[in-house]
Every structure is written in structure tokens, then in C-alpha cells.
């Protein structure tokens, strides 16, 4: 059996989430990687555990339509096709599955065997073990559940592929990236997140950033904080945002709705700071502190 992994490049490097997907794929046998766009060929070829990199320089924007069409032509050579459960993976792989009339399996957290997988359902309130009868298995991988392969040590061969014919029905217009010097949320060792309790955007920045700076942490947000404009959307942690599992997760001024817990309850140590002793976040927190975060957070900054 051979697996194919659709990988993503960011700032010239292979994203950690893609390296986790390669680690998952190695459970099925040899692993090839599909790389889109004109950057990252060298980084991809040194990935540990990759046999061959299929490189499509002409597909620069990873649009779902041509990418799924290309993957469909490659599918007969593979037993498993994987990607990270990133916005790109979730956009493209189900489309491929639609072309092949295969039932894709989203957000896999554990591989039991070549056709049996475990995935969370109902916002992580249950774990379903599912078995696929499809001849090619199409999986997206929850990156926090698989240790990524190393960036170096591999020596994959490189094969350049042409882009598939473009049907012209979808066109890339623009990408607006938010700039951040902090570690990527999904891979940060420490995450500090804020909710509605921070009251406005300036408090959100002024109270959380000094702690994040001291701990080298990424900053996350609850949906309420994002909807109130305290933080941009890509900082949202939860069922509909990012799923994180850092060493330390500090939740401040957020109640801990089930949709938020779905995104962080696999963190190793959870700290909750909230004024309401009944807030559900205290039920999952290893260390809780009941009190006013406008006093506690500056004191915490000082104590660190």
C-alpha cells in the first residue's frame, strides 16, 4: 500500500499540520507527497519518510476544482489519500471524494488499522470508530493527534507534473493574510485565550499580549470575542475554529461552552481564570482561579 499526502507550504517550509498528516500516512506503507505552487520543493524533498514528491508548480492557489481533478487522476495508484484538517484540506479532499464517489473521513484522531479510524463527533462529545469499505480511503488528519515527521533527514525524488486543464469556472481574486509574529496557534506549546469577559479589543491586546510575550504563547479567542471584534477570526478556538492541544492552555474571561471545549480540551494542562465560579470551564480546568481578570492578569504578567 502507498499513501499520497497533499501538503501545504508556509514561508518556504512545510506546515507542521502537513508533517503530522505524513506521520499518519506512514502507518499505511510508503508515502508520496503532492506539492502545489512554485515554492517549497526543497523543503518537501527533505521531509522524513517521504518517497517521492509530486510537484505541480503551475497550481499556485490550491483551488479546489483543479486540485481535486488532479488528485482524481492520481488516485488509482494509492490506497489512502490524506491531508491535514486545515481549511485547505477540508476544502479539497471532500471534493475529490465526490469525484470518486467515496465517503471521506474527516478529522481522524486515531488509526486503528488500514480501514478503521476514530474521529470526534458532536463537538468532541463522542468518539466514533468508523470502518470504510471504499477502495481508496480519503482522510483529513487532526494535526494535534499525530506527532509530525522531521523536516529533514529524508531524500525524496522529485517529479514535476503539469497542471490539469482549467475549466475557468473558479478564479482566485486575492488573499488577505493577517500578520502575526507569534507562534502558529495550532502548534504553540502555550496558548492564552480570551473571551467576552475582556470587554473590548484594547483590553484583549493589553492584558493578553504581555503574558503571551513572556510565555512565548499564541493567543486564541472564543467565538464571542471574535464576534465582538476583539480578535480576528483565525484566532478562534473551537468546533468551528481551530483545534489546539498545547502543553498549557490558559482560558481567561470565557465560560467554556461545549463548542469552545471541542477545540481545546485535549490540552495537557488547562488553567481557567473567570469571575463566575459556576462557569463550565472550571469543570475541565486543572487549575482554576475565581476572580476579576482585570486584577489577575496584570498580576500574572508581573509574577511570570
Amino acid at each position, binding site marked *: 500500500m502507498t499513501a499520497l499526502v497533499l501538503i501545504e507550504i508556509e514561508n518556504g517550509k512545510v506546515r507542521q499540520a502537513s508533517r503530522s498528516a505524513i506521520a499518519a500516512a506512514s502507518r499505511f506503507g510508503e508515502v508520496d507527497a503532492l506539492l502545489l505552487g512554485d515554492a517549497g520543493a526543497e523543503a518537501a524533498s527533505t521531509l522524513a519518510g517521504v518517497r517521492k514528491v509530486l510537484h505541480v508548480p503551475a497550481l499556485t492557489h490550491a483551488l*479546489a476544482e483543479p486540485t*481535486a481533478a488532479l488528485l482524481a487522476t492520481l488516485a488509482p495508484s494509492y490506497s489512502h489519500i490524506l491531508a491535514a484538517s*486545515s*481549511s*485547505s484540506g*477540508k*476544502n479539497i*479532499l*471532500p*471534493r475529490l*471524494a*465526490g*469525484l470518486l*464517489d*467515496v*465517503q*471521506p473521513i474527516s478529522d481522524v484522531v486515531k488509526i486503528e488499522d488500514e480501514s*478503521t479510524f476514530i*474521529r*470526534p463527533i*458532536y*463537538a*468532541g*462529545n*463522542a*468518539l*466514533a*470508530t468508523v*470502518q470504510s*469499505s*471504499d477502495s481508496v480511503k480519503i482522510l483529513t488528519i487532526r494535526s494535534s493527534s499525530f506527532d509530525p515527521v522531521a523536516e529533514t533527514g529524508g531524500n525524496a525524488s522529485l517529479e514535476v507534473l503539469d497542471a490539469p486543464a482549467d475549466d475557468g*469556472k*473558479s478564479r*482566485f*481574486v*486575492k*488573499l488577505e*493574510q*493577517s500578520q502575526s509574529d507569534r507562534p502558529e496557534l495550532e502548534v504553540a506549546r*502555550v496558548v492564552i485565550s480570551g473571551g467576552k469577559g475582556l470587554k473590548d479589543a484594547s483590553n484583549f491586546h493589553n492584558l493578553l499580549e504581555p503574558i503571551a510575550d513572556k510565555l512565548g504563547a499564541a493567543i486564541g479567542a472564543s*467565538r464571542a470575542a*471574535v464576534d465582538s471584534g476583539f480578535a480576528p477570526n*483565525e484566532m478562534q478556538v473551537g*468546533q*468551528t475554529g481551530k483545534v489546539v492541544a498545547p502543553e*498549557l492552555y490558559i482560558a481567561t474571561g470565557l465560560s467554556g461552552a461545549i*463548542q469552545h471545549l471541542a477545540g481545546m*480540551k485535549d490540552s*495537557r*494542562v*488547562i488553567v481557567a481564570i473567570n469571575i463566575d465560579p459556576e462557569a463550565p470551564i*472550571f469543570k475541565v*480546568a*486543572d*487549575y*482554576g*482561579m475565581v476572580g476579576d481578570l482585570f486584577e489577575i492578569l496584570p498580576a*500574572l504578567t508581573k*509574577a*511570570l
Partner: protein
Amino acid sequence: MKVLVPVKRVVDYNIKPRVAADGRGVETQGVKMSMNPFDEIALEEALRLREKGHASEVIAVTIGPQVAQDVLRTAMAMGADRAILISTDVDCEPRVVANLLKAVVEKEQPGLISMGKQAIDDDMNATGQMLAAKLGWPQGTFASQIDIADGHATVTREVDGGTETLALTLPAVITADLRLNEPRYASLPNIMKARKKPLETLEAASLGVDLTPHLTVVKVAEPPQRTAGIIVETVDELVQKLKTEAKVI
């Protein structure tokens, strides 16, 4: 153009689901069911497109047993013009749903399909993409803004690290993200009116689609529970615990 809005009846998002005693699924007997929140947003967007003159008719469709009519009545109370129930007692995976919806699309010929990005029960996030593939239509997933002009949809999408804008030739499939809009409530008069709107029932078995799943649920289990933590009184105590006990800072 017509806009087709697939909606799903799911366990209400405020309910904490309990794994059924037989380990085959989640308890749904006697549990409050509602329209999937992302589908409400997709429906709201379709209604706004009709109000702006881009759509002539909004059709809600669902797949499930007779009782699933209630989400279609809700959709019509919000403003959908009519509804279609694809009747089946079989649990349909996204692949089968996409095949059934394709049959409805071929019959109704909509110019746009507006649907939720994922259902909050199976959390698959797949049906829209699969349906677009099967129809050969372009897709605009995780949409936070949609503008229609000259046979095109300009879709702003929420992606990792920012937003992306695509131009799609209609017909297309667009899946709604949370920030697309704030869905309206159904008023009491509109709930009454919705009872008189047309609701057509199609038997799933009559649409020529094999309902046999490719993915079988072997087991559903509770996730591992976290052990109860402690409440600390001071910031110094917290920092101390994190340093010496948890060893995370």
C-alpha cells in the same frame, strides 16, 4: 434564479449530547432537535439574495424521516417559498446525501446552492464539496461574504491565516461560515403562514440512488474524561503550581 438550501435536523446545539447505552450512537430519543445552525445562516443568505432581487425562489430541502418536516416548516417560517422532504428512515452519510441532492438539483435546476459548512452532529464538513464535485460546479466553501453580479458570485472565504476571495461562475455551491450573517427569527404570523406553504415529499428510494453507506459506525464512545482540578487562591500560588507541579512554565 432559484436558490436551493439543504437543511439538516440535528440535536440542538445547546444540548450536551450523551452517548447511547448500546454504544451505537448518541441519544436522540426525547432530545430537542433543531435546524443545524450553519444551515440557518445559509438560508438567511438565500433570503437576502431574494430580497436584493438576485433570487426568484428559495427552496429548502431535507433528507430524513417524516418528523424532519419540522425543520422545513421552520425554514418556510423564516421565508423559504417551498420545501422538499426526501423521505427515508435510513441514516444517510454525506456521500449519499450528495447523490440524493444531485437528483433534486437535476429536477429543480437551481442557479445556486447555499448550504452550511458542516453539521454539528457528524462534524464532517463534506457534503457541499461532494455535491459541487458531482455536479461539476465550482465551490465557495466557508463563505463569510457573497456578492452576486453578472452570472458570477464573488465569495470571501475564511481560511487559515486570513481571508481569500474567489470569483465563481454560476451555478455554484456555496457553504456558509458563522460570520456570513445573523439569521432572522421566524415571527408568529410567519410560522402560521408557513403551514400553508407547499411541502413536497419525494421517496429517497425513487431517486435512483443507492443508500448503502460506505462508512460503518463500529462504535461510539465517551471521550476520556479529565480529572477534576483544584482552585487556587492567589496568582503566586498559580505560578508556583505551574512551575513545580505541572512543570509547564
